[in-house]
């Protein structure tokens, strides 16, 4: 195989693919990417960890058609440092490849095409959705996905798309992020999807949809979910198992509420959390008439207290929170007003931004038992 590609196109596409190629893969061949020619004017670059596969198509001048498998990380490092000029690839004997760019010459080791695993073939993607909406869904929920493997079904997002709208829900068992948009306009078409999408897939989709304007196409079969983001395709294994009944956790009887500036609340929580126990990160909200007092203490280091004015005339209530859980949400919302809706010390609290937009975005945090 022999082809020429611009340095920028090479670096950009490798940037998308190399994220899923694990550095210390248990199956050594998976540290490689597969480059294949498509006609005379384009190539595809494929990377996989067997759960997630990304295939990018990009322009290139193919002189000799064929394929090659080369080390992903090394090629990406090379591409980043090359001058802005055409890069020449040529397959050599024993699966090696030469890479030339102006005065730079590299020979890099590869593996035989046959040793590269068969990746799931791309199925149809009949559903269309605005990339911006989908990225907003991911950005506002991904942080609540558990990082622990022990709760397999919580290690991804529940994504439902049907005629009435789209919804994404994530949880780690202590908090839950929920986002819904009913009016998808013309951007959503096709049959519905109900899938559990792994966290890693969502992280890769964030990269693919960043700065991509337009629609993405989606499709799913029994085990996989397919995404088409312009010239880039992503196939992911879906998580199997039952996502917990999230509607059960959404509070329905929270009868008290305060509205507060998100930035002020975030800053106050961050400051008070400095004196919280390093391991529990516990901060105490004392909500009384006209004032929200946030406090924390550690026996060895000291204590912190901060008061914020709020409009509230209900009963005094004390609720304990893991400060990190609050900061994650407040950091995503950024600015504007947020509503904090609660019932008592031991019931779930709901936070939601008050800004008028087309999303129904809610965040449920379980309190700490004080």
């Amino acid at each position, binding site marked *: 195989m022999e082809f020429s590609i611009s340095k920028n196109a090479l670096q950009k596409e490798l940037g998308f693919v190399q994220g899923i190629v694990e550095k210390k893969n248990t199956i050594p061949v998976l540290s490689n990417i597969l480059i294949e020619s498509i006609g005379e004017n384009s190539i595809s670059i494929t990377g996989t960890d067997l759960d997630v596969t990304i295939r990018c198509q990009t322009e290139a001048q193919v002189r000799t058609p064929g394929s090659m498998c080369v080390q992903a990380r090394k090629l990406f490092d090379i591409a980043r440092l090359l001058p802005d000029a055409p890069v020449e690839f040529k397959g050599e004997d024993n699966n090696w490849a030469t890479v030339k760019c102006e005065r730079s010459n590299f020979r890099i080791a590869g593996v035989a095409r046959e040793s590269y695993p068969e990746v799931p073939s791309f199925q149809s993607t009949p559903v269309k959705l605005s990339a911006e909406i989908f990225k907003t869904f991911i950005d506002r929920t991904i942080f609540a996905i558990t990082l*622990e*493997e022990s709760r397999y079904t919580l290690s991804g997002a529940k994504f439902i798309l049907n005629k009435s709208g789209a919804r994404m829900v994530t949880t780690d*068992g*202590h908090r839950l992020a929920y986002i819904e948009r009913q009016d998808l306009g013309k951007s959503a078409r096709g049959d519905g999807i109900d899938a559990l999408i792994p966290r890693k897939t969502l992280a890769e989709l964030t990269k693919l949809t960043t700065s991509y304007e337009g629609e993405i196409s989606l499709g799913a079969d029994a085990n996989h979910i397919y995404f088409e983001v312009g010239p880039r395709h992503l196939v992911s294994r879906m998580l199997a198992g039952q996502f917990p009944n999230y509607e059960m*956790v959404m509070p329905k009887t929270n009868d008290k509420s305060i509205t507060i500036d998100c930035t002020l609340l975030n800053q106050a929580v961050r400051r008070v959390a400095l004196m919280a126990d390093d391991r529990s990160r*516990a901060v105490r909200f004392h909500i009384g008439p006209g004032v929200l007092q946030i406090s924390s203490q550690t026996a*060895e280091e000291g204590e912190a207290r901060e008061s914020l004015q709020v409009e509230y005339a209900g009963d005094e209530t004390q609720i*304990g929170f893991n400060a990190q859980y609050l900061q994650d949400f407040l950091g995503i919302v950024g600015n504007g007003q947020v509503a904090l809706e609660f019932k008592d010390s031991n019931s779930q609290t709901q936070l939601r931004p008050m800004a008028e937009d087309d999303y129904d975005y809610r965040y449920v945090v379980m309190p*700490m*038992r004080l």
Partner: protein
Amino acid sequence: MGSVYALIDANNFYVSCERVFDPRLHHKPTIILSNNDGCIIARSEEAKQIPGLKMGVPLFQVEHIIDACGVEILSSNYAVYGDMSQRLMWSLGAFTPALEVYSIDEAFLDLTGCLNNHRDDHYSRDDEETLDDLGRRIKRTVRQWTGLPVSIGFAPTKTLAKLANHLAKRRPELRGVLDLTQADGREEALAQTGVEKVWGIGRAYAKLLQDAGITTALELSRVDRRWARQRMTVVGARIVEELRGVSCLPIECCPPPKRSITCSRSFGMIVESVDELREAVRFYTARAAVKLRRGGLAAGGVTVFIQTNRFSREDEQYANAWTTELALPTDSTPELLGWTLEGLKRIFKTGFRYKKAGVMLHGLVPASPLTIRAWDDKAFQRSRRLMETIDKINGKFGRDTLRFGAVSNDESCGRWRTRFAHRSPRYTTRWSDLVQIAN
């Protein structure tokens, strides 16, 4: 007067504990063995004089010496040692509340406040009493209250106090007390101490220093500050300052929070079946869970490990561990058992002769406050209440009075149980083992 620290260390602690309850052992060479009666882990002064009876030596290699010299052998008896340690610490607490329990048999005391502000109780020090006098009074008190002999080092820093204690033990003319609070005499003590004996100097630092021509504590105290900081990090720099008499390491009255809890033993006999391994893992999990709850903690991660006898030349070797982080921290024994048994299932391989297994709980967080679970919190709270009740009953009526059916108790001897063939009675923690005085 500047700061005054004391390091108080029981002499030959394990042997001394045994002698408290068995006076026959006085003046007899005595050794204490590790779990499964494998190696020597403690010796009396008389045993130390016998060539060949070194620390860490396997018992089978020195059996001929033991027979020839009439050495008394005892299995380790941690129930007695732990209880005696507590008595020692209580006794020392009478002299100052600023006490740091450093190990099972040693404690640092900050006597600074006591020296400047005399307390009104019986144990305060009068104006005429020197530190040497105080040391002897502490020795007498501890001996009278616990039966244990101790050595004491006084100094303006913890590192120097440790060094003073080391010398007090090794120089008979000091009769177990050395005061290095005054600069006079400190240089001589530092010059007599090899750099490898300084507290905090391990093998790597000792080699680094010896390569740099620094062989004594005195030479170490005189090294350039910047050199120490660069070559030995802040840890080494603090040691140097402490040797110069500048206190850098305050007393830690509260032990630092635990990072992990491990329960692991070598088996009394080789185990091959998964059923026996499961029994051992259940037992270790239950023990670790009790320790977890006693410390007011919940685990955010679990590791289970198994291994064959790495010293055996005949056996094929296998060792493996399985770790999982828990999304929801827990202190409930049934939940922890679920994880550790799942781990064992994943790492167990048939055809190997297993010698050891263990359970480690990590990612520890305070059990209160704990975030309420979004799902199944009621069941979790029920389980926690059950654990609390079981722990209370066992605390009142003795360990394993109530236990899970899946977890065997001490008396049901599995082959995996640790062997203690020469263990003395557990004099202070079991009614049935109380000392009896013959008519």
